[in-house]
């Protein structure tokens, strides 16, 4: 009697697939439902950001940075404008720094809420998804009050902020901060406390500490693998050295810790915003910068802690109004490198969950 050879099934997931965030595509080789090989294919959203920057003035490029990690657009603005300010040597007003921290941390909360929501949704937790999105909506409202738009806010300028937040912003912020503990309690109740969700996440997709360091993973994914590294603490930029906050670190290395660490980070962000609201001084929100921005010739690299990891901008200036070269170090593009390694041996289902916990935003991966 002869045993029939089983055939390897090659499945093409994406770019149009319900669980792929944005236009990500992965080719999975299956043995039954177990993954034997995974090839990520990216580039479907490539817009040539870095090249586009070369034909735009420094200020004109700010809206493009919104489209990198579009779930945390103020943070991308922040990384870019700070890089240019570093190149020009501009000091920005105190109030603008505080406002930047407030919006940056709001963006972190919004981004983490989307991450929790989409991780739940990738496991068919529909209600958990809408709970998190319901709360994120309030952050979008606050963006809208100040900047006029809700997603790609374009809120920062070289030298400060685009606008002073209106009167109604502060009560909205306060009520949001007050409601957060209850909000997080609800996420625990509907998603993290669920036995099925825990079964899906715990001990799945182990990314060891060594592996995370070797792949130069950053952000919550790295911290969930037990490495205490956060740019806000390691190399404090803006005014982060003035705030009292902890960097949440977890040592589970699995999908569960990669998800739950975002909840811890939301708590820390709330702390930072509360301190910033308490200490914010009066004053202008924009420094006196020349109308035509013409940084001196030279090069600069600056990095910030984006909600998803380390976001860096490298700018080479030749002394004209346009950058000679811009290079972006995206967080999730580099975090994505772990997927083909970690996914091996897991089922399709688990890979969907692992991919969700990476919180990849394809706008940033493909640039």
């Amino acid at each position: 009697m002869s045993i029939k050879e089983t055939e390897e099934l090659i499945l093409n997931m994406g770019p149009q697939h319900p669980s792929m965030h944005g236009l990500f595509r992965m080719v999975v080789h299956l043995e039954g439902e177990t993954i034997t090989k995974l090839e990520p294919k990216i580039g479907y959203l490539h817009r040539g950001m870095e090249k586009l920057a070369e034909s735009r003035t420094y200020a004109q490029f700010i809206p493009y940075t919104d489209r990198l990690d579009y779930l945390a657009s103020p943070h991308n603005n922040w990384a870019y404008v700070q890089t240019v300010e570093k190149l020009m040597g501009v000091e920005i007003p105190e109030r603008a720094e505080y406002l930047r921290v407030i919006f940056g941390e709001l963006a972190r909360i919004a981004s983490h809420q989307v991450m929790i929501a989409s991780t739940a949704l990738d496991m068919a937790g529909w209600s958990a998804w809408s709970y998190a999105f319901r709360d994120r909506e309030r952050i979008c409202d606050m963006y809208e009050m100040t900047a006029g738009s809700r997603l790609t806010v374009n809120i920062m300028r070289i030298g400060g902020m685009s606008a002073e937040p209106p009167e109604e912003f502060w009560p909205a912020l306060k009520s949001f901060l007050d409601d957060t503990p209850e909000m997080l309690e609800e996420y625990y109740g509907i998603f993290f406390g669920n036995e099925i969700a825990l079964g899906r996440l715990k001990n799945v997709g182990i990314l060891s500490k060594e592996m995370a360091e070797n792949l130069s993973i950053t952000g919550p994914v790295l911290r969930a693998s037990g490495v205490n590294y956060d740019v806000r603490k390691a190399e404090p930029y803006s005014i982060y050295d003035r705030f009292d906050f902890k960097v949440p670190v977890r040592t589970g290395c699995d999908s569960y810790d990669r998800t739950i660490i975002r909840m811890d980070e939301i708590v820390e962000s709330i702390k930072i915003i509360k301190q910033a609201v308490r200490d914010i001084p009066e004053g202008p929100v924009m420094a006196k910068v020349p109308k035509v921005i013409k940084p001196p010739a030279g090069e600069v690299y600056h990095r910030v802690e984006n909600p998803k990891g380390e976001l860096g901008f490298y700018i080479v200036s030749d002394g004209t109004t346009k950058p000679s070269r811009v290079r972006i170090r995206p967080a999730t593009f580099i975090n994505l490198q772990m997927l083909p390694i970690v996914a091996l041996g897991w089922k399709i289902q688990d890979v969907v969950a692992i991919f969700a916990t990476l919180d990849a935003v394809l706008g940033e991966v493909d640039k």
Partner: protein
Amino acid sequence: METLNNLFLIIADAIRSLFADPHSVWANLTMDVINFIIVVVIVVLAALILILLERKIAGWTSQRPGPNRLGPRGWFQTIADALKLMGKEDVTPAGADKFIFKIAPMIIFCLPMMTLAVIPYGRKMAPINLDLGIFYFVAISSISTLAFVMAGWGSNNKYSLLGGMRAVAQMVSYEIPLLFSLLGVVMITQSFNLGVIVEAQASIPFVILQPLAFVIFIIAGLAELNRAPFDLVEADQEVVAGPFTEYTGLRWGLFFLGEYGNMTALSALAATVFLGGWQGPAILPGYVWFFMKVGVIIFFMMWVRWTFPRIRIDHLMHLAWKVLLPLSILNILLTGLGIYIYRFVMGG
């Protein structure tokens, strides 16, 4: 009250009395045709109502209004959706096994009509009074596995194939605890006849005598129906829509109708076997009690679906073989012991 309770029986007798001999072949045939039409109407109406109800419950659990544009509070939404589905292009993939591809949705749509035909909707109101009612019900409803595999294989699509594979693994595993959980009731009543089982629950519904069996039945039933958290077969985040991926228009609509029909049928079985079917305080007619009980079970299923995430595939198998199956065997053992002790005490 008595008239209202027996309303449908009186109508049936009136129709029969139109014939010269009320029990002739022709009279029986007419009644069979009428019964069949009633079951079809129940399936289609149930699907129409349940689809809207599901979306309303989804809205309720996730704090949004749900469909609310068409008609009063959106109640006409399903009708509009059904009309839209009818207008869609009927696509058969080039590589599909055409016969199998086309016949699969029809099979799935037939099953709830066949199973709902043996359910007693009220006193003496079973369209077909079958002595092997439970046996027939479970045997027929397990054909749906075949339909899923046919759809999965016939579509010639990898996602469909994976979905079909999952369907076999899952439904075959959960059939066993499902059937075993019903055995306790059969042992007590000494009958497979659903009418007899309902009559036996005049004083006490079997959910109180067999709580473990009821829980096992609901869990295994959810898995058997491919409802969340066991909807691995059509898990859209993993296998797009499983076996239904390639279906369009009314063929897809038939799957949908079949899904809700099967849900109604299984809830009807649960209400009949465990919740006392049409038995209830005489303030309402029996059939109203019956449909209320079915409604409660369906509501529970929808509530679970929109709250729970999807279970992991290996946990699914663990649950079936390592938890539900031993528990259901234990339940049979306990029931047997209980019956033995009862007889011993009663001196039987």
